[in-house]
């Protein structure tokens, strides 16, 4: 209880101080050091095709996680990823906005659309909102196809160059991701974050203690769509091309899977989830020929059993995580850490005696 009040009145400065003093600080420092050093030792291909998407999807998954903090869920987050991507690219191409401003204007545009959608559906329950957002991602595809002469989204178009690809782009994305995630961390430690948590725990009770639940749910939605838009702008940059396929349901389910597998409503969950999923998607296709040799004769109706088997195991993995490990892989890591800490404590005790 005391801790709750301390949080409630705690300013950002105090948060920073307590963060600096906590153990987490060293973990974060370590993770950032790893993220900064690894790209220097791997090939350009890995930096461009594995590490950069990892970072971008970390932002994207974190944005989804921010929404989940307030007890809401979206099944159409790809709409905002796509809007961010399209808006930032179109601003740069059609209006000649410098790409770096285009990136932020695109995110703001995505947040503005998020505000409109949010205004319409903050009153809805979790699964209603999920449906509406999914519906919106379908409508957006239709609209872009309808106005194809202006946008040119069906065939797609190359995006303007922001930073040289490879290492420079990686470090820029890395910096943006670090800033975004740190901003979300501070947000969740602030009064606003406390309101989000309260709404998630029990909306009625949150309302009773005077939290304007509609306002905070809308805020969560707008902030989440802002970061999703930012991820979209970066994603369009990283693949150097944008097309209407960015609105596919696949991209809507991706952040959800990352967050759930990594650890729902934790800061490290989206990062762990993104690392796991992107690695699976980048490296598992390599065993396709082996799988085809082993399992192919069993399923004669498919020419390559690799992709369906991979998706099947991903689905099973998701179900198993939700059923048996509801707090995600990050909780497993904590358990392992705690186990070792207990061990060292006992060893110390023995040595002391």
């Amino acid at each position, binding site marked *: 209880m005391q801790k709750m009040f301390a949080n409630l009145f705690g300013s950002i400065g105090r948060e920073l101080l307590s963060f600096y003093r906590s153990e987490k600080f060293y973990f974060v420092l370590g993770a950032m050091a790893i993220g900064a050093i690894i790209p220097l030792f791997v090939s350009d291909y890995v930096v461009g095709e594995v590490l950069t998407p990892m970072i971008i999807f970390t932002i994207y998954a974190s944005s989804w996680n921010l929404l989940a903090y307030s007890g809401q869920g979206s099944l159409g987050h790809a709409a905002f990823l796509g809007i961010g991507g399209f808006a930032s690219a179109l601003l740069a191409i059609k209006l000649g906005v410098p790409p770096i401003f285009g990136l932020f204007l695109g995110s703001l545009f995505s947040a503005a659309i998020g505000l409109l959608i949010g205004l319409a559906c903050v009153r809805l329950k979790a699964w209603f909102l999920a449906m509406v957002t999914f519906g919106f991602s379908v409508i957006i595809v239709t609209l872009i196809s309808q106005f194809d002469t202006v946008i040119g989204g069906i065939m797609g178009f190359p995006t303007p160059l922001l930073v040289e690809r490879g290492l420079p782009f990686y470090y820029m994305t890395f910096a943006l991701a670090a800033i975004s995630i740190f901003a979300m961390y501070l947000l969740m430690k602030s009064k606003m974050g406390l309101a989000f948590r309260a709404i998630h725990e029990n909306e009625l009770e949150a309302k009773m203690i005077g939290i304007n639940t509609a306002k905070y749910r809308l805020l969560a939605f707008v902030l989440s769509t802002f970061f999703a838009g930012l991820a979209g702008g970066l994603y369009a940059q990283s693949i150097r091309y944008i097309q209407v396929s960015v609105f596919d349901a696949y991209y809507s389910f991706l952040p959800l899977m990352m967050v759930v597998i990594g650890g729902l409503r934790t800061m490290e969950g989206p990062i762990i989830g993104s690392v796991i999923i992107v690695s699976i998607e980048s490296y598992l296709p390599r065993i396709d020929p082996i799988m085809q040799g082993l399992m192919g004769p069993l399923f004669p109706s498919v020419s390559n059993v690799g992709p369906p*088997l991979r998706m099947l195991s991903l689905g099973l993995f998701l179900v198993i995580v939700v059923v048996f490990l509801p707090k995600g892989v990050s909780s497993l890591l904590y358990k392992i850490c705690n186990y070792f800490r207990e061990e060292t404590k006992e060893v110390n005790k023995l040595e002391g005696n």
Partner: protein
Amino acid sequence: MSGLVETLLWGVVNGCIYILLATGLNIIFGVMKLVNFAHGQLLMIGAYVAFTAATVFGLNAYLSILVAIVTIALIGAGLERLTFRRVLGTDKLNEIFVSLGLIYVFENVAVLLWGNKLKQIKSPFQGLGLSLGEVSISYDLLLAISVVTVILIALFVLIKKTKIGLAMRATSQRSDTSMLMGVNIEKVYIFTFALGAALAGAAGALYGIIFPFNPSIGALPTIKAFAIIMLGGLGSIPGAIIGGLLYGIAENTAVYFLGGIWQDAIAFALLIIVLVIRPTGLFGEKGE
């Protein structure tokens, strides 16, 4: 003119399939307060089961509906026991996550077993139809409408007149109290889920007779069935029936007047507008 009449007829047939799916979802939601996003995948598996029964075992297409109903009911019971029961009553989002995982599982199992190509169940009445002046109505459409009517009447009798129906209605109102009154709610849950799944299986078999299908057809019908439930009100079966018919007709009329790319968007636009005006749905009760 004849074009419009045919459009309306197709709307009714589409609507019938949506009604089965939406009613199944609605029963599950009403009794268990569970949202199953993988419901459309049960439809898809139902279509494939009926297809296998019809082609491999040479069963009549309309008899294969029964095979689909039984198989999907069993799959549904298994799903409830193995996955949903474990997350029921925890975080609401967990149910959504489990069903999303199941979507991946079902779609890819179907790809592995039956391949990616479009298939269709061969009906004995293929190409035959009633001709009324300019309009010709195929027997398959008429049969589909009658099958759905029979299923809905049977469902009505089951819910209103039998003991398990009574238990389901009691559980949907107050699960704790009905448990105290001696209702085995675990049994009710498993029965309810199997019943909802069976309806999806029937819908799938009918879908397979009327339309060609592949493993990825399940996603959109689920979303549309949810839209219908929201239009008709959560937990209300008459609402689902009226909503399903209206939705099927609206969708086909939109395609007729505006063009194919609007088929999915117009429906969602309608849904969003309704939800903005009435967050509980057109016929929904206050409080949910």
